[in-house]
């Protein structure tokens, strides 16, 4: 139970080791590398908060990896660091051969709250990435493709306040995808949706992932969602936030939510999180 050094602890497959060994998959910038990263905050009351302690992680190009753990385990912090929105207190973050120094259109980010710009229509929200990079004129035709991709053509001219939660989140996805990011960072993107919308959206995200081959890093506290969607599951524990264990999910796709293997893996992860939560204070 030593923090940080557990990065290699996987559910034992050569497959995963091979994936990690290859530094670059199809595309260099699509892989992510987190090397000994720590992040400390100073809380409003002056206390030093260790949001993330010595984390290391590699994500291969085209992989779908989820970060799972109770709140306060630093999974959102790690995602913000990868997005380049925050700088680490120590350690390095790499996107392919390039060090992450700030936000980039190469790494799209989708929050739990869709955060659509309320003053723009659906179409203009999706366009905003193109406008921001000054390539709207050449790439305007793609906007319609993305509208179609997320099935929101009839709502192209609606304002965000007229959309349901699921529709808004689909727009947020399309807005992040319009820049063709190499990596998509998803911070509990489906957390605020009801169970049915959520399952439909999971399939939708999977469809996008398969179609586009984008590397995806998904933060969630829904273990079922992690097992259903991801190649690997990174279990994290809080106080201080660190990576506890990395689990390979080797179930056939499309996965069955009630297959025995699925349920067994689910039980295992629950056990692991429970166990970790109980023993962590003791071992420190």
């Amino acid at each position: 139970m030593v923090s940080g050094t557990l990065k290699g602890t996987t559910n034992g497959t050569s497959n995963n080791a091979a994936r990690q060994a290859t530094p670059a998959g199809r595309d260099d910038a699509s892989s992510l590398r987190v090397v000994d990263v720590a992040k400390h905050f100073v809380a409003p009351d002056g206390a030093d908060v260790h949001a993330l302690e010595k984390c290391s992680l590699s994500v291969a190009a085209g992989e779908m990896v989820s970060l799972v753990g109770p709140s306060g385990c630093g999974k959102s912090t790690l995602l913000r660091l990868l997005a380049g929105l925050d700088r680490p207190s120590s350690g390095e973050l790499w996107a392919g051969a390039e060090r992450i120094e700030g936000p980039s259109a190469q790494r799209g980010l989708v929050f739990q709250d869709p955060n659509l710009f309320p003053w723009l229509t659906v179409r203009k929200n999706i366009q905003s990435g193109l406008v921001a990079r000054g390539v709207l004129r050449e790439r305007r035709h793609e906007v319609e493709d993305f509208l179609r991709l997320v099935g929101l053509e009839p709502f192209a001219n609606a304002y965000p306040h007229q959309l349901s939660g699921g529709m808004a989140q689909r727009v947020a996805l399309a807005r992040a995808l319009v820049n063709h990011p190499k990596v998509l960072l998803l911070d509990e993107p489906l957390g605020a949706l009801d169970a049915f919308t959520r399952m439909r959206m999971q399939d939708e995200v999977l469809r996008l992932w398969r179609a586009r081959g984008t590397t995806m890093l998904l933060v969630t506290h829904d273990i079922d969602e992690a097992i259903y969607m991801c190649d690997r599951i990174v279990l994290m524990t809080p106080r201080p936030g660190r990576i506890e264990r990395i689990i390979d999910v080797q179930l056939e796709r499309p996965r069955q939510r009630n297959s025995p293997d699925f349920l067994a893996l689910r039980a295992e992860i629950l056990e692991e999180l429970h166990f970790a939560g109980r023993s962590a204070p003791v071992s420190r």
Partner: protein
Amino acid sequence: MPAHGIATLVADATQPADVESPAAASPAQNSQADRAAVAAPAATPPGKVARFGAVAFAPTVAAAIALAVHRWVPNGQKIDQPTRLYPRLLLILLVAGVVVGLTQQLWRRIKPTPWNFPLAFVSNALHWCVASAPVLAAGILLLCAWDLVTLKLALVPLPYFPGPDAVFQTLVNDWASSGQGQPGLAECMTSSLFLLLSGYFVGSFLGVVCGVMIGWFPAARYWGVPVMKLVGPVPATALIPMALMLFRNPTLSAVWLIALAVWFPVTMLTLSGVMNVRASYLDVARTLGAGRAYLIFRVALPAALPNIFVGLFMGLGSSFLTLVVAEGVGVQAGLGWYIDWARAYSDYAKVYAALIIMAAYFSTIMTLLFRVRDHVLVWQKGVIKW
């Protein structure tokens, strides 16, 4: 419906709380109310529709009462030459009321129409007349009460409180020229409008620029906030002597004062809007590849717009105040000047005439700003309630 007796008409006319009036009271809700009405026509009981029709005649009834009072109650105040203007106005209102009421009866019920529909303007104007019939009637009755208190019963002394008749006559007489070679009301209105608009646009433009700078750049905040704190709360009107001295030209100094009066609230509200932009909007924009210009002009500025409009409304109010005061000093035309000048001659009919114009004028400008706000902040629909 036409079978309604006159007694019912009067009874209905005096009943202010009509089924439709809440919807008419706030134009923002009109369309929703309309949609609801279209969606469920059967839900409206026929009796209510019928009464709605009768209320359309309320202004007519009120005008008739006012006309009767003016015609048959003997004059209490001594006036040189009674004019026909006020009774004529009432007569026009009466006839118009009958026409609108009858149209309403014939068409059964005029609904607000989408603006792309042919004759939508006529239909919507008619609907407005019918929907605000109780308010119009109350206004006419207020005129009648004014007439009674002043001209008819002479409850208040004359040079200070002329009747509606005298005031309306002044409005017409002074339209082109106020006599003694002084500019008339029309010229005063254009002059005031010029001062107001130039001052307002300069002030609000500078306010938005300063607000964005101070809200966005820490350095601008460090140097700008102390200036804001010192200069902002000083009423622009207190700076009149300084403005006159600085600019020599009274028109220029008035523009400067109005701009200053607008600048402060617009700057304050803009900077608070920019500083309070949700951090996640900026985060999202940055992950979409936005540079600084995009963050300022396409995220912070639109996100601050609701706040900016609050500042623009506050600025408009203080610009009216500053306009009227500044016009009293040095400028040789304008509504503020006109009031000052008329008061010096104790011609109170002119004062009231100018006040009526001012009320109509300023409320129109205010309404226009509301329209602009509704258009610009259409994305906030359902959020804003003012």
